[in-house]
């Protein structure tokens, strides 16, 4: 059956990146459509009327929204190749827990490391490192959160790595100094084609963050 896959996305989005990596892991061809978030396309507004956000995966004309939900959908439909979730129910619950944890904590805290100053920024940096340290504990001695291969936690977290340079530069701290295991994990992930071909360049992301800061009057 001819599958039609369209991804509505925005290049630096760590949420969009997780969908792109999931699609790459499954070896799926799709049409990538870049959205201008200041001028959202009619298709985006039609496909995600509730949130009007990217990413949206349109599969044979039907939209799937919310990145964590899209990743599970991709894993369920194309279940024969590169499983992203474990098969054991308890391990699945743990994998889902950590994706939920990443979604609840990492984005907002990371954002505050570059969008705030003074005490607020110091607090954000401290929290950010604490979050990564908890994730390091989860990783343990495994090469990936998914074990020997990328799992949904890896796929969901790695998109933040191209933002690390921005957080470090603007927050004036070193993620590697506090969380060397995470950096090691980032390097291992980057050796995977699905990741290396997807992750935007960190300096390019930094340029984008600088533009955002100008817009918010932070520069």
């Amino acid at each position: 059956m001819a599958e039609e896959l369209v991804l509505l996305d925005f290049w630096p989005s760590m949420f969009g990146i997780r969908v792109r990596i999931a699609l790459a892991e499954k070896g799926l061809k799709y049409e990538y459509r870049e959205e201008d978030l200041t001028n959202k396309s009619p298709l985006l507004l039609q496909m995600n009327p509730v949130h009007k956000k990217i990413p949206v995966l349109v599969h044979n004309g039907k939209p799937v929204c919310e990145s964590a939900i899209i990743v599970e959908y991709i894993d369920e439909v194309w279940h024969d190749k590169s499983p992203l979730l474990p098969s054991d129910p308890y391990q699945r619950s743990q994998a889902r827990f950590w994706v939920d944890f990443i979604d609840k904590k990492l984005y907002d805290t990371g954002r505050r490391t570059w969008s705030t100053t003074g005490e607020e920024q110091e607090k954000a940096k401290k929290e950010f490192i604490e979050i990564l340290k908890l994730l390091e504990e989860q990783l343990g001695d495994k090469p990936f959160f998914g074990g020997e291969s990328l799992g949904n936690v890896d796929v969901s977290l790695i998109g933040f790595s191209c933002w690390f340079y921005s957080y470090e530069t603007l927050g004036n701290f070193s993620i590697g100094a506090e969380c060397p295991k995470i950096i090691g994990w980032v390097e291992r992930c980057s050796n995977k084609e699905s990741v290396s071909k997807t992750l935007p360049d960190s300096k390019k992301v930094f340029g984008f963050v600088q533009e955002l800061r100008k817009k918010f009057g932070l520069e």
Partner: protein
Amino acid sequence: MAKSDVKVLGAWPSPFVMRPRIALNIKSVDYEFLQETFGSKSELLLKSNPVHKKIPVLIHGDKPVCESLIIVEYIDEVWSSAPSILPSNPYDRATARFWASYVDEKLFPSMKEIVSADGEEAKKAAIQVVVDGLVLLEDAYAKCSKGGKFFGGEQIGYLDIAFGSYVGWLRVTEKFNQVKLLDEAKTPGLVKWAEAFCAHPAVKDVMPETDKLAEFAKVLAKARAAPPPK
């Protein structure tokens, strides 16, 4: 499986805690309900959910599972014989998960806004936001139910549990604000659905009566207004 092998840590008023209890009831799984004392967190809770320190927690054997919707999916996967809680089709599953996420991330916070709204105008505006959200869910109900009584069709499913667990608190909000949130005119399907949900055998012993919940809401409001305990 022995009752003591499955424990739910929680509290009766919490909509989140209702979810695993309803799911276990659907699967006819016996469990021990360990209630937390209001205002404090037990050693068991802190040990079982060190990351968030929140209820509910499902303890299966000695393994904790946290986050109410994740627990519901776990229950569905472990006790995999019928009735199923998640839809069988991946697209329907994605749709159910989408609306469950909407209910938690948008609807519930908008309900809380009604409580914190200051003054008549703000309250009216906050109420409108909730009503608008419910109208979206009415549309989702029409599409998901496919002619059945529930979001899950003929049987209650994941989205019924996710959204239905808020019905008690919706009713309390209606009572305190003298307003209809689930309304015959705007959300006729949901009005019927809410009744059917609350009357369902897996739900009726778990869903608190509105009056009891309203009393608790007053206790909660007082506790929040009081200075924080040491």
